[in-house]
C-alpha cells in the first residue's frame, strides 16, 4: 500500500505516559513546537496568499510602496482581463489555456492507454531482464529536458511537427509513459494474480480475464495515475516553449511567462493568470493526496 497523507495523520511516534514532572517541561516544549510550525507554515503559505491578494488588488495598490496588506480596494478586473480582451473577444491567454487542456488531456489519455497494459504485462509475466527494462524506462524520465529538446527540435523541424499540438502531445506522452508504467505496476501488484487464474478456469482467456476482472479493480489506481500525468503535462514548460512558436499552439505556461516580456509588467494580470492556471492543479492534487508519495517520486517509492 502506498504511504498516504491520511495514514501519516493516523499513526506516529507514541506520546508516552510521562511522569508529571517531565510532563510540564513537555508542555512547554509542545508550545515551542507548535509556534515553530505555525511560523514555518506562515512562511510557506505567504507567497500563495500574496499572489491571491495581488490578483484582486487595483493596479495602484499592487505597486504601492510600502506594500498594502489589508486596506486595498477589491476588484476582479484582472481575472476578467485573463479571459476577455479589451476589444471584447477572447484573449490569446484564454486560447493558450484551451491549448493546455487539449495537449494535457490527449497526452494523458495516450499515456494511460499505452502505460496501463504495459504495467500489467510487467507485473504478471516473466519478461527477459525485467528489472533492467523497468529501470531503463524510468531513466528516460530523468533526462534533462533542455538536452532532449535539441534533437527533438531538429527532428520536429524535419517532419513538420514543430509548432503543432500533435508534436507536444507526442513528447508529453513519451514523458508520461514511464511514470504511468511505474505507478500502475504498483497498483497491479496489489491485485492478486489468482483472480485471473480463477477466471481462466471458468473459460475466459487471459485477455478477457484482464479486461473483465482486473481492469475494474484497477480503475481507482488508473484515475490517480492519470491525474498525476495530467498535472505533469499541464505544468510542463521547457518543451512547450521550445517546440512552439505561434499563439495558436502555445500552451499556458509559456504564455503566462510571456506576460513579463515587455518593459512594464502587469503583475495583477500575471497573478490572476497564475491563479487560474494553478487552481485546477491544487484541486486535482487534493483529490489524489492518498497517492502523493508514489506520485511525486514517479511511482518509485511506495510502501
Amino acid at each position, binding site marked *: 500500500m502506498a504511504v498516504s497523507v491520511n495514514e501519516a495523520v493516523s499513526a506516529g511516534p507514541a506520546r508516552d505516559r510521562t511522569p508529571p514532572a517531565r510532563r510540564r517541561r513537555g508542555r512547554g516544549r509542545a508550545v515551542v513546537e507548535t509556534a515553530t510550525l505555525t511560523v514555518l507554515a506562515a512562511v510557506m503559505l505567504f*507567497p500563495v496568499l500574496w499572489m491571491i491578494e495581488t490578483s484582486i488588488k487595483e493596479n495602484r495598490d499592487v505597486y504601492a*510602496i510600502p506594500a498594502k496588506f489589508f486596506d486595498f480596494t477589491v476588484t476582479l478586473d484582472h481575472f476578467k482581463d485573463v479571459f476577455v480582451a479589451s476589444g471584447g473577444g477572447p484573449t490569446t491567454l484564454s486560447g493558450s489555456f484551451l491549448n493546455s487542456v487539449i495537449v494535457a488531456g490527449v497526452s494523458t489519455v495516450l499515456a494511460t492507454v499505452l502505460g496501463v497494459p504495459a504495467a500489467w504485462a510487467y507485473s504478471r509475466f516473466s519478461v527477459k531482464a525485467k528489472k533492467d527494462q523497468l529501470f531503463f524506462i524510468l531513466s528516460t524520465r530523468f533526462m534533462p529536458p533542455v538536452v532532449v529538446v*535539441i534533437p527533438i527540435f531538429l527532428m520536429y523541424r524535419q517532419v513538420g511537427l514543430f509548432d503543432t499540438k500533435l508534436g507536444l502531445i507526442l513528447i508529453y506522452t513519451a514523458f508520461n509513459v514511464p511514470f504511468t508504467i511505474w505507478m500502475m505496476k504498483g497498483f497491479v501488484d496489489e491485485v492478486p494474480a489468482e483472480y485471473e487464474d480463477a477466471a481462466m478456469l471458468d473459460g475466459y482467456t487471459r485477455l478477457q480475464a484482464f479486461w473483465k476482472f482486473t481492469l*475494474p479493480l484497477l480503475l481507482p489506481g488508473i484515475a490517480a495515475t492519470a491525474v498525476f500525468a495530467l498535472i505533469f503535462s499541464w505544468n510542463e514548460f521547457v518543451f512547450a516553449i521550445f517546440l512552439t512558436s505561434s499563439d495558436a499552439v502555445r500552451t499556458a505556461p509559456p504564455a503566462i511567462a510571456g506576460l513579463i516580456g515587455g518593459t512594464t509588467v502587469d503583475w495583477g494580470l500575471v497573478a490572476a493568470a497564475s491563479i487560474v492556471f494553478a487552481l485546477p492543479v491544487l484541486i486535482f492534487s487534493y483529490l489524489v493526496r492518498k497517492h*502523493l508519495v508514489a506520485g511525486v517520486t514517479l511511482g*518509485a517509492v511506495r510502501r
Partner: protein
Amino acid sequence: MSDPVSLTDHPVQEASSTPPAPGRSRHLSDRWLTVAFISPALLLLLAMSVFPLLWALYLSFTDYSATRGGPATFVWFENFTAILTSAQVHLRAFTTLLYVVGAVTLQTVLGFSIAYLISRRVRGRGVLTTLFLVPMMLSPVVVGLFWRFMLDAQFGVINSMLGSIGLGQVEWLTKQNTALISLIVVDTWQWTPFIMLIALAGLTAVPKYLYEAASIDRASEWFRFRTITLPLVWPLLLIAVLFRAIEAFRLFDLVYILTSGGPGVSTETLSFHVYKVAFLGFNTGTASAYGILMVLIVIVLAQLYMRYLNKLKED
C-alpha cells in the same frame, strides 16, 4: 485497494493443476500478450527518448549548426575537448554545484525538521500536511513569476517588509552575490515539501513499540532519535535527497523565469548554458556534446538512485 471480486469459490490450488495441453497454448498466448502490451510503450520511448539522444550523440561529433544548415562535417572529439577545457563551462559547473548542494541541503534540513515536528503532533496533522504541500504542486513558471514579483527591488513585498523593520533594500535578483542565493531560496521554498512528505512517510512507518521499549529503558530523547528514528528513516530520506539532486541538476525553468542566468552569468547553471549555446548561439554540435556530458552525469546519479531504491525494496 478495494476488495476481491466474487471468485472466492475457486481455491487457488486449482489454478496450478490445469491440464498440460491448454497450459501450453495459454503460455503461448501469454507470450504474445506480453509483446503486444509492452512493445507500443517501448517503441514510443525508443522513438522519443532514445533516438533523439542517439542523434544528439551523432551531432556531438560534428560541427552542425541548426541555422547555417548544410552538411555536417565530422570533427570527432573536438567539441568534447572544447567543453571540458573551457573556463566558461567550469564556472557554470561550479555555479550548478553551489546551487544543487545549497538548495538540496537546505531542503533536507528544513523538510526533515518540519516532518519531525508534524509527526510529533497529535491534532491537526492532516491540515498542516496539506497546507505545507501547496508549493510543491505549483508549476515552476508560477513559482518563478511570483517570486520575481515579491523579490522586486522597488515594489517587492520582501523589501517592503525589510524596510518596515528598519533594514535596507536588497537587490535580490540584480546583484551578483544575492541572485544565486535568491534562486536557492525559491527552489527551497518550492521543494522543501517534497522532502517533508517523504520524511513524514518514513517517520510514520517507524513501529511504535520501538519507542515504547526505549522509554521503558529510560532512553533520552536524543538517544531515541539517533538510534531508532534516524536509522529507520535514513534510507527513504536518501532516496528523496538523490531524487531532488537529479531534479536540481537538470533545472531550467526556474532560472529562465527568475533571473535568465543574470546578472552577468552569476546564476547560469549548466542547463541554462546548454540552452544558450544551442538556441542563442546555434552551435548545435557543441551543444549536443555538452548535453551528452550532462546526460552522463544524470545517468550516474540515476544509477545511484536506483541502487538505493532497489535496496529499499528488498528490505
